[in-house]
């Protein structure tokens, strides 16, 4: 045959290529395809090394640890530091630390091929939803039960409750490394100048808004990608007000969970602030870092709900003498179930060890190094943020007011530290994208409490009813 038998005229050729162009342009379709599905045989078959007190997981000498670290606000140098520690402690082990900014996109093919890295910092906007891969992760109980490089059992060196957000259906599989406290951030110097005090309830916030307005400033502001920071604050407030039942209802996606009285009270409190015009308008069209600079640099609004990463994030855009300080999220009434000092604290930078990795023991050893004193102190000092390891931040907070206040907040909260599993910041079921939409219109004043509640409930119900999504039972 060949081209002579049926002359492939220029016309047919062009027609074909046009169709091909049309097809190729829908490249999103092709993006779904895999490069062949690999086998899942290669589970930690590497010969184990001798297990001893100094080598609790039995890392094989001469083996390589493949660490893939999210390169975001914290960079990867702290992980490279930890890698050096492993290499110093375990003879002949090499640690290869590689950065990525899109964890899910980069590592998805490796998971399919059954060849994931030994340890992953699963963080950032492009993280892998833990729910998707939780069957493929190694349990990390032995890591925190092992002794650190100083000889203390790691579990005893950690802040309280830090393993809970990484525990799913009783299995501890995600080690969240960088401690975040969620608070309302403000400039202590600005407050001092104007004689303002930190509001403890939503009513106090409303009256502070009045005072701020007198000085030509707004009370609060937001950016479009970070509208759900207000959801985080609202849930924090509601849990303080109504206790554990609120948290459990939300975490277990209960029908009507957003209509619980404590949550409604918080929404109504926020709505009053929005209606009074104390919220800086235009947030739904502002990039969140620009919005945050309106707070930290231009001081156009005075309070901002966020996690403690905010200091590092805004380092270059903070007015000198700003004295960034955190206060606990406000309560609805003064006789809430948990005291005002109770603190929402959850760690970020979720480290996971895939059970199919070639060197699971090496991955765990890497985490052990990170949780030992040298690496933890190095992280606190260079990143101005605490890890989940206690006692790594001196009283002067390395000169950072935000870090000082973070430690003070944790001390004041004592055992009243709480967090939750499903919603932000963990976002187990990937609901944040949809929630942002609802929150943006609520904060800009375009919708009301009823619409917000219905919007959030619809999103929650959609996940709850979808059988293809595995649910985590939270207790």
């Amino acid at each position, binding site marked *: 045959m060949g081209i002579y038998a049926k002359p492939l005229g220029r016309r047919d050729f062009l027609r074909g290529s046009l169709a091909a162009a049309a097809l190729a342009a829908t490249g999103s379709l092709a993006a779904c395809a895999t490069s062949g599905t690999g086998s899942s045989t290669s589970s930690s078959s590497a010969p184990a090394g001798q297990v001893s007190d100094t080598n609790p997981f039995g890392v094989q000498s001469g083996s390589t640890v493949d660490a893939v670290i999210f390169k975001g606000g914290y960079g990867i140098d702290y992980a490279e530091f930890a890698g050096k520690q492993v290499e110093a402690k375990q003879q002949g082990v090499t640690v290869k630390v590689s950065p990525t900014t899109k964890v899910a996109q980069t590592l998805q093919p490796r998971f399919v091929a059954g060849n994931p890295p030994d340890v992953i910092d699963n963080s950032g906007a492009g993280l892998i939803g833990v729910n998707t891969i939780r069957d493929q992760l190694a349990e990390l109980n032995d890591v925190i039960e092992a002794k650190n490089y100083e000889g203390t059992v790691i579990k005893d060196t950690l802040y309280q409750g830090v393993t809970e957000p990484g525990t799913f259906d009783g299995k501890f599989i995600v080690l969240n490394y960088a401690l975040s406290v969620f608070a309302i951030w403000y400039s202590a110097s600005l407050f001092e100048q104007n004689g303002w005090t930190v509001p403890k309830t939503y009513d106090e916030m409303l009256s502070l808004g009045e005072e701020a307005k007198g000085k030509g400033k707004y009370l609060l502001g937001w950016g479009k990608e970070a509208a759900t920071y207000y959801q985080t604050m609202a849930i924090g407030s509601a849990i303080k007000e109504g206790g554990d039942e609120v948290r459990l209802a939300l975490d277990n996606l209960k029908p009507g969970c957003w209509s619980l009285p404590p949550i409604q009270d918080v929404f109504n409190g926020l709505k009053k602030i929005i209606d009074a015009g104390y919220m800086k308008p235009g947030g739904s069209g502002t990039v969140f870092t620009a919005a945050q600079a309106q707070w930290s640099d231009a001081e156009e609004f005075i309070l901002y709900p966020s996690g403690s990463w905010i200091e590092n994030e805004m380092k270059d855009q903070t007015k000198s003498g700003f004295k960034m300080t955190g206060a606990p999220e406000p309560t609805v009434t003064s006789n809430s179930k948990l005291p005002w000092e109770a603190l929402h604290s959850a760690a970020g930078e979720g480290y996971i060890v895939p059970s199919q990795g070639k060197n699971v023991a090496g991955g765990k050893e890497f985490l052990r190094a990170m949780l030992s004193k040298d690496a933890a102190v190095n992280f606190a000092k260079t990143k101005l943020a605490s890890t989940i390891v206690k006692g790594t931040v001196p009283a002067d907070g390395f000169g950072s007011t935000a870090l000082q206040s973070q430690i003070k907040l944790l001390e004041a909260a004592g055992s009243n530290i709480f967090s939750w599993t499903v919603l932000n910041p963990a976002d187990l079921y990937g609901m*944040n*994208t949809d929630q942002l939409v609802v929150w943006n219109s609520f904060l800009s004043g375009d919708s009301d409490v009823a619409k917000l509640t219905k919007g959030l409930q619809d999103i929650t119900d959609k996940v709850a009813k979808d059988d293809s999504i595995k649910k985590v039972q939270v207790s």
Partner: protein
Amino acid sequence: MTTLASGGVASGVSAPPGGLRRIGSARWRRRNLTFDKISFFLVFLVIPVAFYIGFVVSPFVQAAYFSLTDWTGFTPAMNFIGLSNYAKLFTDSTFLQAMGNNILMAIVVPIVTLGLAMFFATLVTVGGSTRGNIKGLRNSSFYRVISFFPYVIPAIVIGLIWSQIYDPSAGLLNGILTRLGLEQFTSFAWLGDPRTARWAVMFVIIWGLVGFYMVLFIAAIKGVPAEVFEAARIDGAGRFRTAVSITIPLIRENVQTAFIYIGILALDAFVYMAALEPGGGPDNTTLVMAQQLFTTAFARGQFGYACAMGVVLAVITLAYAGLVFAVNRIFGGKSEVGE
């Protein structure tokens, strides 16, 4: 047929008498399988087809198959679940909204962009003084270069630039409007208000593409002999009449191709949206299918479902291309591809 074959590609090899029917015979093949011919087949046929099958067809088939499974994207394991992803898709209000947004964009963006591009192209080529030779406006080459500038900038950069211009508090647009005394635009969120977001986004896409299609049309119009325009002018046709009755019919095929390309872009629009409205915009008014596909796949770990979205997107794109062909034919286009 015979002429096509003998005038065909491998010149020097003339078709045997008796026409094409005998070409496939063994005798013919034996005689003509020269090194030249084999290497020609290999380079121009076998390798491209192999590439095409390997990198275009097979991923499509795979994706179509995955759309019938519950694949999470992170395991080699998957279960066949038939069409339930598609059933879910057509009750998924968010996806349907995204589809509606895409369709609106596929209607508005091509018409406005190509209309403007045609208008400018006419001005630059034949819209000049009615005395003397057919020519464009004065300094037309300057306009041509200027209008091409936005196309030189990568789409993602265009998106980022415009997201700064639209910034409610510090953006250029509100700065100008408030300076002009329009106080209602103080802190107005162009990208954050459901009434304006989709138009603001479409404006950016149009802004970025007009120059390119203008240059495309200019090239096409230059291919039309000037005598045709002169004749029309002598017959007393004005500029508008010339454009409608002469220019557009003569460059019909270019317009069709332009419609296909820009329509495909509007049905995708992922890059612009990633920069301008990464979250889908206020009340999801700017959410596009490609964005929804991306979140479903990577943030929610539902690759099977995302593949179903991809298949639907591909079908819509092909339907759009078919529609453009059909419309062109109804309005008197002779062939599908320009000769």
